[in-house]
């Protein structure tokens, strides 16, 4: 049974694991720099100083949430709306954290909850890929996340100071970089025909929700619908 894969074996948290995570995240961090440049530039146009933009990138560390709130960033700041939007965009993290829990709940609290800060879509997916291969070094998540953090904050600063460098990422095809990485990860997760139903349901619900609901609800709803469809199928 595949769910046992995530609980068997000794769980470690080593420097070697962190370095392995950082190495695997290099291409992601590079394309993340392109997005960070765009964020820094747009933040400048929204009235945030370079220092404020970097502070947001360092403390919030979530591209999706940060781009969404830029659209709300008008004086006087609608603080409650901004914070609520951030919370809604971040809800998918709850589901992602649940998926990491079989391994991370066995770590000392400081390491587990310290790592949680660095959990982004990309290093989370890579970490689950490592666990699925039987590797159990939980520092992989933080290593990759730290590199992405440096790339994200550094490029935010660059974008905020050198404004207008990359106003349109689609001109460089960069809008597709993350999609390509996610697709490659999905391809690696293919286990057979049992994936067809949950993935079809996830795709259908995500497209429908993307079409009819604002913001990032489609990720959460698609993820919930697809994973429940997978369990329902297994039950018969």
């Amino acid at each position, binding site marked *: 049974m595949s769910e046992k894969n995530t609980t068997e074996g000794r769980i470690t948290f080593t420097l070697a694991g962190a370095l392995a995570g950082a190495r695997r995240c290099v291409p992601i961090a590079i394309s993340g720099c392109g997005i960070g440049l765009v964020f820094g530039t747009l933040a400048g146009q929204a009235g945030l100083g370079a220092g404020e933009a970097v502070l947001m990138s360092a403390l919030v560390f979530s591209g999706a949430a940060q781009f969404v709130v830029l659209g709300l960033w008008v004086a006087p700041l609608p603080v409650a709306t901004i914070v609520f939007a951030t919370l809604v965009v971040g809800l998918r993290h709850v589901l*992602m954290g649940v998926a990491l829990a079989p391994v991370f709940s066995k770590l000392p609290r400081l390491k587990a909850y310290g790592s949680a800060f660095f959990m982004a879509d990309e290093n989370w997916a890579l970490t689950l890929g490592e666990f699925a291969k039987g590797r159990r070094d939980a520092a992989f998540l933080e290593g990759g996340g730290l590199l992405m953090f440096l790339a994200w904050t550094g490029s935010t600063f660059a974008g905020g100071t050198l404004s207008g460098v990359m106003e349109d990422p689609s001109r460089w095809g960069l809008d*597709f970089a993350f999609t390509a990485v996610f697709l490659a990860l999905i391809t690696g997760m293919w286990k057979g025909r049992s994936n067809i139903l949950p993935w079809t349901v996830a795709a259908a619900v995500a497209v429908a929700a993307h079409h009819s609901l604002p913001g990032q609800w489609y990720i959460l709803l698609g993820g919930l619908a697809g994973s429940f469809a997978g369990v329902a199928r297994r039950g018969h």
Partner: protein
Amino acid sequence: MHAVAIDPGTLFTIALMALATYVTRAGGLWLASRFDLSERAGAWLDHIPGAILVSLVAPTILMGGPVKVFAALAVVIVSLRTRSLPAAMVTGVGTVLALRALQANLL
């Protein structure tokens, strides 16, 4: 111009955003370690990563027009053959760029 000056109201808003995001990042771990998971819940967990990743990409690809559909196919073929993340990324970005250039020249 004070590029590094930070407005107190902005700082306050960013701090609350940081708190909201961290709560979501730590929340799943906290919930799952508080409550014992049944075998059925374990099976559900197994399906979450794939379902979330599919949900992340499906609207981009399926509503992104023929360029993105073709680029997605190219990425899937390359990653099945090579199992390499950088190769998949270069293929995706390269295919999108090439097809957009082609489209622009044909119109």
